[in-house]
């Protein structure tokens, strides 16, 4: 495999409750590039993301393989994949009643980084994300708005510092100002740092801020089309019907 390939999906099939979710997906992502993954509701975008992350119910069937940085990770648990450098921001992050984001990150970063270090980083990054201190100090996502939840996902990503960042609808439920903040944050922390980005989105809007190198389109569990940024603009104009 070429050094420039960071992730390789080989023949990924996924059936859940007898329903075919993903069919024969083959995909290579190049290190340092940005990808937009688009497609209508239910086309399998989020499922593909969960397969890459390693969610327990999303193990590929029929001998499909996931190779990350030249390592076969198909049978690795989620936490091990996260430690190798994969991060998936949740589309609908759960609301916790007792766990604060700082505590989560302190546990995730121990023993490499000290608790104090993490606390300081959280403080700095939340300012950059224009997150109110009260939001950060509450248990994670408790009474947080949609936009705040998405920002808290990015805050975690920035501290965990992954090589492959998958953002599942990071732009959904976010107002115009927040979208700008979020896009700028992604650009500064991940694009400029040469991270590989997989952006799952329905909208062109965020792509205006973060121009992808490639656009992938899914339909009924398959990747049916790919192209450059112009493909996204076309979809914005014409919808998915013509694909």
């Amino acid at each position, binding site marked *: 495999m070429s050094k420039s390939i960071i992730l390789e999906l080989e023949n990924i099939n996924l059936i859940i409750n007898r329903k075919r979710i993903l069919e024969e997906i083959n995909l290579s992502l190049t290190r340092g590039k940005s990808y937009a993954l688009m497609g209508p509701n239910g086309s399998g975008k989020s499922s593909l993301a969960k397969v890459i992350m*390693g*969610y327990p119910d999303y193990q590929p069937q029929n001998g499909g393989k996931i190779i990350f940085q030249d390592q076969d990770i198909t049978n690795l*648990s*989620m*936490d091990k994949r996260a430690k190798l450098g994969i991060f998936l921001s949740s589309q609908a992050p759960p609301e916790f009643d007792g766990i604060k984001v700082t505590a989560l990150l302190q*546990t995730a970063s121990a023993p490499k980084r000290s608790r104090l270090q993490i606390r300081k980083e959280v403080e700095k990054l939340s300012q950059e994300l224009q997150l109110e201190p009260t939001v950060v100090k509450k*248990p994670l996502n408790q009474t947080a708005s949609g936009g705040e939840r998405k920002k808290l996902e990015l805050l975690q990503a920035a501290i965990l510092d992954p090589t492959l960042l998958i953002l599942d609808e990071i732009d959904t439920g976010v107002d115009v100002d927040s979208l700008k903040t979020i896009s700028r944050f992604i650009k500064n922390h991940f694009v400029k740092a040469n991270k590989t980005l997989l952006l799952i989105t329905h909208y062109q809007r965020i792509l205006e801020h973060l121009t992808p190198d490639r656009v992938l389109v899914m339909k009924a569990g398959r990747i049916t089309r790919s192209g450059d940024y112009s493909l996204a603009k076309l979809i914005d104009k014409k919808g998915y019907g013509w694909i």
Partner: protein
Amino acid sequence: MKTTFQLAKGLTEETIRQIWQRKKEPQWMLEFRLRAFQIFQKLPLPKWGPDLSQINFEEFSYYQEVTESRPRSWKDIPQEIKATYEQLGLPEAEQRFLAGIATQAESQILYENLRRQLEKKGVIFLSIDEGLKKHPQLFRRYFASVISPADNKLAALNSAAWSGGSFIYIPPGVKISQPIQAYFLINIPSVGQFERTLIIVDEGAELNYIEGCSAPLYHQSSLHAGVVEVIVKAGAKMRYTTIQNWSKNVYNLTTQRAKVHQNATMEWIDGNIGSRITMKYPCCLLVGEGAKGYVLSLSFASRGQHHDTGAKMFHLAANTSSRVISKSISLEGGHSSYRGLVHIAPKAANSKSSVSCDALILDPQSRSDTYPTMRIKNPKSLMRHEATVSVLDKKKLNYLMSRGLSRTEAEGLLVTSFAAPITQQIPLEYASELNKLIKLEMEASVG
């Protein structure tokens, strides 16, 4: 500690006389002990709750004297216990004391300053035996005034054989904001421990008392049958915190009760982690108008453990209120039950009580039960009861693991956050100790 004198096993009138003689107690205490012994013989063990049929009361020695000399060296302490202390991040002085290396006297030096300050204010903080000797009248006035030997079989046993424990008196208006701590340790195999604690918080005074237990592991079954009596006078405030981590062979059958007078407040905070069987229902007798009672209880029952814990609230005057928050965690076949009683007497008009029990069950082998009893005899009073049973939320578990937390770390974080409403109420160093203990237990259960 080194045992210098020990009675033969088993309890008889003769052994009680010997205890009394060796402790050089007044005549009335002998009569009290003997009467209690008769009651002990007559009363049956509770027929409800955990199985106590394995307890053989003849197996225990009911009295021993220990020297205050350096008992054993650090290198004699089992490696696993040292490792636990270290993982808990205890200060070395505390580690040494818990391990039974430092003597009571040594540890008292650590608190000498505090003791002097307290003495200046007229506070009495003594061992219960000293209390009886130095303050005979005060002692006799309150001793067994809240828990009679006839209360239950174990309270009768304690009344007959008690030794050790604390005697505390806080004069009117004296407020002690700093938590006062006490450590108890079972470190002699097959010896029943019958501590007796008597605390009097006089009018308008305040006390925050912490009892932390951490016992090394032993092979033979041990019995801990303590009695804790608290008197909270008018307008006074008392908080009694217990963190119990007896080794997994201990029967912890402790009776705790407070008499709460007019506009006074009593708070029991009870964290049970260790022991084989714990039966413990901290109780408030709300005897004065406007009295308030709280119980916050946390139970963590793992393999081979049964915790039957809860609270008893007796509303015996008007405008009294009580609140019970119980959280239990069961895993690896552990069994925890909430058993509670709220009694609102006919004359307790305009009283309020609220009870909430949340149980978290980590696997299908484990079990949790709730046995609430409510007796509301006054139509103008209000009672609320809520109970929830939950399993670990898979969605949250997956989310945490996707951030790189191992399954054990993720479960630990979810469990400690479930317990947070209780652990947040105790001083930080104890809370973090408690959280670490929970995590250690969970790691051990994973293997």
